[in-house]
Structure formats: C-alpha cells, structure tokens
C-alpha cells in the first residue's frame, strides 16, 4: 500500500479514536483520498469483517465499499459494519447484532451518512463516559427516530450497537453504546 495512504489512515484513526472517546464532539477526518466515507472505512475494514447497507440506497454504496476494502457483504442481522443513508434506516436498528454478554464487542457498528452535524441545538442530550457534563449535537438529514431507537437498542449495556455519524464535509461524531441518550 502507498505510504501516503498509510499515513492518512493513521491520521484518520486518530480522529475516529477521539470521536469514539468523546461522544458528541465533532472530529474532522483528513481531506483527500476518495471522500470521507472511503477515508473512514479504509482505516477499519478488511476481509475479516462483514458489511451491509441498511436501506436500498446504502446497499449499492456498501457493495462499492466492499469491493474496495475486501470486506464481505452479508445480511443485516450478521453484519459487523452497516451503512445507513437518509430516513429509512431507523426501523432496522432493532435487528442488528448487539453482541452476547460473554462477547459484547461483537455488536455491530452503524455508520450514518448525514448532510451536516452541529455541535449544538439537538433535541436529545448525550451523557456518560467520555462526556464531561452533557452535549446536544444536532444532525441534519437523519430520521428523528434514530436517537430514541439507539437509546432503546442500547438500554441493556454492555450489549448494544455503536454509531458513527459522518457528514459530507468529513465531520465525524460517534455515539457508542455506553452513551446515555435522554430527552432534553
């Protein structure tokens, strides 16, 4: 692999690590490469993991990502990583892998592709590990049902799914399963 790509992957992972460690904060992925989604996934995906698109629009994108990263396309219920675009994804969150109590890390990671992320103005509060008090990020281009459903799916910690929310400018916010999602 080209050295420049390798180093970009390292820089990308540092942004992802910060985003996952500090839920609700916005981290900027490095520019360049083939766009934010490819930049994000080329640091994490390979033939060891499986991928699925939650909605029909994301299925095409998932196939493209799988072709580039070597990951396998599987059914929603078995996928390690999932892509979601737009409004239709929310309902499917309940069928995804949440891991087992012996191996909770086998829960899925869902990447929501949204139009934009604001640090303030969201309808829900986030608190828990990685958050000093509370944060209220706002996501545009995502169904209102996603955050309450995430709260529902993740209520049985340590089982659950971890969310990455990526916008078109390469801004990334994460909501791991440890985050408490409350009404404001």
């Amino acid at each position: 692999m080209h050295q420049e790509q390798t180093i970009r992957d390292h820089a990308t992972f540092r942004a992802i690590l910060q985003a996952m460690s500090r839920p609700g904060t916005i981290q900027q992925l490095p520019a360049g490469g083939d766009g934010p989604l490819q930049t994000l996934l080329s640091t994490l995906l390979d033939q060891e993991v499986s991928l699925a698109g939650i909605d029909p629009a994301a299925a095409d994108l998932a196939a493209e990502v799988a072709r580039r990263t070597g990951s396998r396309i599987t059914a929603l219920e078995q996928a390690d990583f999932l892509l979601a675009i737009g409004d239709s994804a929310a309902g499917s969150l309940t069928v995804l892998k949440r891991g087992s109590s012996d191996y909770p890390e086998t829960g899925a990671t869902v990447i929501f592709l949204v139009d934009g992320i604001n640090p303030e103005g969201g309808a829900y509060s986030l608190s828990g590990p990685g958050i000093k008090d509370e944060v209220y990020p706002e996501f545009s281009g995502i169904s209102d049902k996603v955050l309450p459903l995430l709260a529902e799916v993740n209520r049985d910690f340590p089982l659950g799914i971890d969310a990455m929310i990526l916008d078109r400018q390469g801004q990334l916010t994460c909501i791991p399963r440890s985050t408490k999602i409350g009404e404001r």
Partner: protein
Amino acid sequence: MLMREWLDSDASLHKCGYPFGFLDDGAKKEVRRCLLKAIAIPGYQVPYGSREMPIARGWGTGGIQITLSLILPDDILKVIDQGCDGSVNAVNIKKFYQSVADVDITTDTTAATVIQTRHRIPEEPMTDEQILVLQVPYPEALREVEPSEMETRRMHAEADYGRMWLYLYEDIVACGEISISYRYPVTVNGRYIMDPSPIPRWDVPKLHMADTIFLFGAGREKRIYAIPPYTRVEPLEFDDHRFRVEDFDGKSCHRCGATDTFFDEIIDSADGGRKYCCSDSGYCDKRMAAWNR
C-alpha cells in the same frame, strides 16, 4: 519529523524494509477495531490476535501494537518504564519507534502527544490532547480468585464479582487492611471490574474522570481494553476500609527534594541506609533543571 517531510523523503518510503508503523495493514485494522469497541465498552477486555513483534512477548508488545496502529510522523513520543525514561526497555522501544515511524522523542510529559508506559502514570497531569498507552502483563483482575478464563468471562458477563469482594475481605482479616500494592482492582463506569495494570495505588485516582484517553494492551495475553476520558473509575473498597494511596509522610526525594511524588526506595548496599527518589524520572529531572537554572 513533520508529516510532509516524511512523505517527501524517498529514504523513508521503505524505512528498514518495513511499512510506516511496522505492522501490516491487517494487523493495524484489527487493533483499531478492537480499540473502538474497547472504548465503547469501558473496562471490558476485547480479545485480539496479538502479532509477533521484534521483541519478546511480555516486554511491552501489547502497548507497542496499540501505539503502532495510531502513531503519526509528527507525534512527540515519551516512553517510560516503571517511571523511568532511561531504562533498557524504554530506550529500546524508543529506538524501535524512531526507526519505523521517525517520531520525535521527549522525556517531558507536558511536551508529549503520545506516552507509552509500563507500570506508572506520569506525575504531571495529562491533557485532553494526549493519549496514554499502558503495557499490561495480566489483564484479568479476577485471575487472583479464578484460574479459568471461561469462568472469569462468565463472571464479567454476569457482573458476578462476589469472590473478588470476598478476597478483599479475607485480606483485611489477615492483614488488617487491603494489602494489594499494585494491580489494585477498580470498577469502571459502574460495570466492569478491571485491572489497571501494575501501577501503584498512588496512580489509581488519576484514572478517575481524567481528561486523557487510557488504552491498555496485553500482548502475551492478547487483550485490549480502555478507559475513555470523564469515566468513573472507582477502586474497590469497603465503607469501613477505604482505599488509600501509599503513605510517604516525612520522606522527600534525595535528588530534587520533592515531597509530593511517588518514591522509589533505594537501599545503600554499603551502610544499609535508606533514601528515596522520585519514581517519575522525567519529572524529577525537570525539577532539578529548574533548581539549577
């Protein structure tokens, strides 16, 4: 080295014949995926396929694999071994990082962006810009009370920690207080009991609601775990037998005169006299330099 310089220099393209960061891409990606899950489930040990490294397992390979999966050419790295920047293990690890990632090295905690450590957390407070990578020999806090991996996994799954509490109780019956001096078990985020690696009790409170990310790597035991910032980390204790840190009352560092750091005890082989010095050599040197200015 600046990232741009690294990219522009032909010589670095195949440094030592290895890719940037030594590990192959598949290894880095697995470590990264495990790190993210470890962050999402604070205190839970994620199994991973620990790779062969150019040093033997048990000499920091878990921490090294984590550092190599996230290091950048413009990082400033500090490596400490039991508080000391100059021990053989720390020096060798630093040389390795310089040859495979060309990072700058420092002994100053405040100047570092990534710190890899064996058995100490630096005395100076770390910031939200920094990452601390801890080398872990025995990741399983429950191993003292249960030898079976399947059984400890079940105990963690069910938060069935009664035997750990009993172990502490028996310790109090035998010794009058909890006598664990290092690897003091903690509860992370109110859920998992975790081994904080063999840091002294002195360092345990630094994990609680910190600004910094703590990443733990056990190469021989093939486990990765983590404590995100602003996470509750509570040492196990009873209402009538509280956790306490080491008592260095009345002692001071014979080099820099500090009275508020964790000390190593040095016994003079000639006359048997005892003296103390800061375990954190970088901090001690910094205080010495300030005196001599």
